[in-house]
């Protein structure tokens, strides 16, 4: 019923527009002008709309900042994220500055130089100095931006130093959920391949690999310790996914047939962030950010950042992959090699 009415309204609307068109034409002919011609007065009216639109546009922009600004991501909860935020602030500042300057010039010129038959436009075809100016200045600004950006990029993409204390976690993606696998006491992930998937071994962990015995597999939520670098390794068993952890300024695709990696050091615990945001239900999340199928919109996992003690306590409660197997930490290299054969 509603649709039928809408269609009737649309059809009537079209008819009305056609009649309007005829009225415009006839009134133009009655005034002795061509119906498609823009008179000087009409042109002036359009010119006046330019600054009106500009002000409305800017007001809309500012209203959005006031209205939605508070709900943007809070300060970064990772170490590299602080550099990320600095770079973002600088770039955003530059963009907004250039935006206002150029848009204002555009609408102002359009307003100021509306057609008048008493005036002629200035014949001004080129000026090499001006061209040089607006090639040179953007080049300079961009050089700085590029150098700053690349510096930050290189630091972010630096892998964790193997010698230093760190946590190693595999993020495993499939349609449509996440699983995290901790490397356990030996801090080495056991080999895994989709070829080994069978029964309860949903991640295809190679049970003959001694490093796999102490691996811990968790679902629903995973915990990480504050202040300790976390090295993530991403895998996917079916299609492309993307592990996106927006609060930590972290993202990496999960690619079937390959391993990818990303690392960061969390700096703010979940509890602290709850206080900072004033939201007692706040949780860090991992979500999928690469179209992966029908339920893509609901592929998520909670992340809990807590003190090292709490983290270790939590981890101790998690079940090992093969609790009865040998632990790689308790035997020497030779035995590991033998066991792996």
């Amino acid at each position: 019923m509603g649709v039928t009415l809408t269609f009737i309204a649309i059809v009537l609307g079209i008819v009305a527009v056609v009649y309007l068109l005829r009225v415009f034409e006839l009134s133009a002919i009655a005034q002795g002008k061509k119906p498609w011609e823009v008179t000087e007065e009409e042109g002036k009216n359009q010119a006046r709309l330019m600054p009106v639109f500009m002000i409305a546009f800017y007001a809309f922009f500012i209203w959005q900042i006031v209205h939605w600004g508070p709900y943007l991501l809070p300060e970064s909860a990772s170490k590299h994220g602080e550099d990320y935020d600095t770079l973002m602030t600088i770039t955003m500042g530059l963009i907004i500055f250039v935006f206002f300057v150029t848009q204002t010039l555009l609408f102002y010129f359009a307003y100021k130089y509306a057609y008048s038959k008493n005036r002629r436009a200035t014949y001004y075809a080129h000026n090499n100095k001006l061209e040089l100016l607006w090639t040179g200045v953007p080049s300079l600004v961009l050089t700085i931006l590029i150098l700053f950006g690349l510096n930050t990029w290189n630091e972010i993409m630096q892998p964790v130093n193997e010698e230093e204390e760190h946590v190693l976690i595999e993020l495993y993606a499939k349609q449509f959920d996440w699983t995290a696998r901790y490397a356990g006491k030996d801090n080495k992930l056991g080999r895994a391949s989709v070829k080994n998937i069978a029964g309860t071994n949903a991640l295809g962990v190679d049970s003959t690999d001694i490093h796999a015995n102490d691996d811990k597999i968790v679902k629903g939520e995973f915990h990480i310790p504050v202040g300790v670098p976390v090295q993530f390794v991403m895998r996917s068993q079916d299609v492309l996914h993307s592990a996106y952890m927006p609060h930590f300024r972290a993202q990496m695709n999960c690619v079937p047939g390959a391993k990818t990696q990303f690392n960061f050091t969390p700096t703010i615990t979940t509890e602290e962030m709850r206080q900072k945001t004033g939201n007692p239900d706040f949780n860090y999340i991992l979500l999928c950010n690469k179209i992966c199928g029908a339920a893509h919109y609901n592929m998520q996992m909670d992340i809990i950042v807590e003190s090292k003690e709490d983290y270790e306590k939590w981890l101790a409660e998690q079940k090992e992959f093969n609790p009865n197997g040998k632990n790689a930490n308790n035997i020497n290299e030779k035995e590991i090699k033998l066991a792996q054969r």
Partner: protein
Amino acid sequence: MTAHSHKKDWLFTYVFSTDHKMISKQFLFTGFIMGFIGMLMSTFFRLQLGWPGESFEVFKMFLGDWATEGVLNPDKYLALVTMHGTIMVFFLLTGGLSGTFSNLLIPLQIGARDMASGFINMLSYWLFFLSSVVMLVSLFVEGGSASAGWTIYPPLSALPQAIPGSGLGMTLWLISMTIFIASSLLGSLNYIVTILNLRTKGMKMTRMPLTIWAFLFTAILGVLSFPVLLSAALLLVFDRSFGTSFYLSDIFMGGELLPYEGGSPILFEHLFWFLGHPEVYIVLLPALGITSEIVSTMSRKPIFGYRAMVGSMMAIGFLSMIVWGHHMFVTGMNPFLGAVFTFTTLLIAIPSAVKVFNYLTTLWKGNIKFTPAMLFSIGLVSTFISGGLTGLILGDSALDINVHDTYFVVGHFHIVMGLSAVFGMFAGVYHWAPKMFGRMMNNQLGVAHFWLTFASAYGVFFPMHFLGLAGVPRRYYTNSNFPLFDNFVDLNELVSIFAIIAAFAQLLFIVNLIYTAFRGPKATRNPWHGNTLEWTTPVEHIHGNWPGEIPEVHRWAYDYSKPGAENDYIPQTVPLGPDEEDEGGH
């Protein structure tokens, strides 16, 4: 004349025409019909995004079993998104935009009787038509149309088990695109040959209007990059149908291990974006060319920095071929490669800035006539700035990490590429309707169309940047599953309302266009007092464009308001005076 040959005449004049002016109109109407369908799809999925999970009568009517009891199904939401992107990028803004205006303007503005090969030109259109039909047919097959996003990344696009749309729908998508690429290549080769070989006497390259330069660079980009998409698509066909593993490896799906081994989906991404990024400029350059022409004509002022405008288009075209990796910063690609692509990508900002400042200087001290074409051109400069600037964030690998694939990207490319190109297309139609139909479009409706479209389009895409900065991913069926995004319910509603207003505003244009084509007031030969050659042709279309000799060109196209001249324009056919210097010649 016998009745038989008259019938034949009709067939070859209106259907299998080899006349570039008729082919141009065929591209225009096919492109707009596709664009209208694409727009309708976007209003459908905006209804779902604005009011997630609600039942809509209009879905029951149009979407059938894509919407169970009027509620859009999640996988069909993705089908709509995919087809919207495909149709808008390829059919409206590549085939429709470039096909219409390259065909109309190249022979008319360089002084040629027709395209180098009228037959290839006709073939190009009919392949385009065929690919459009196949693409639309794919909406009605079992499993629905392609649903893996317009970028059709495998494995999602390769395996019907992954999403229903990757069955027959995806096969038809690939067939349609293969035909489309053939059409695009035939068209582009024809444009290049025509521009290089068929210029009239005196039409040196340095005297060509900027539209022609833009079409030339567009065609070159198309010829260089579309074949790569073709090969990417063919390899995907092999993987889908013949069991090869170019893009697939180690996949466990639906409870079984699939036999693919050794391939990589990242290879597909490289091949796809090797076309995909130049494609952005294939879409954008014609629009920039059209508006350069209109801004100059309607400001009654020469375009500022003609040579810089040509140079910047050339630079943009060249750079666009070596920046594709910025779509892949977070694919696990070597970080050093990411650094290289950041460098090349951000360089594009330089020629883009040159273009913007040259537009602004052209307006400065002009004598601006606000025709609808001029309004849309000003709109384009505005959207080109707004959308281009956010590219500085997305092109920077470090910053891309957290906004990659979020609504920030959606806002960015819809403004810089979608709106700019569509505005360029509207501007072109309003401006050259007298050449297409011999009739003038209505001014008041055009003005209303502009302001409604301009305001509501910003209303749709501007707030999306805020969603992106809050970490909301694109291509989500609903944002309601995350408490984190609950504060943006009103934003999503607002965007959807603006989208609906924008869609209705297009009715003003459709009515205006159809009315003009059949009943509009008769045009005069040179209604805008333009300098270029198309305004020297008769209003009625004739085969060969000029009744007598093709006019000779003596000057560049931008002698507007030249001091000492009687009128505020001097057509290109007027010989140089004794003391006059040709701006384009040196």
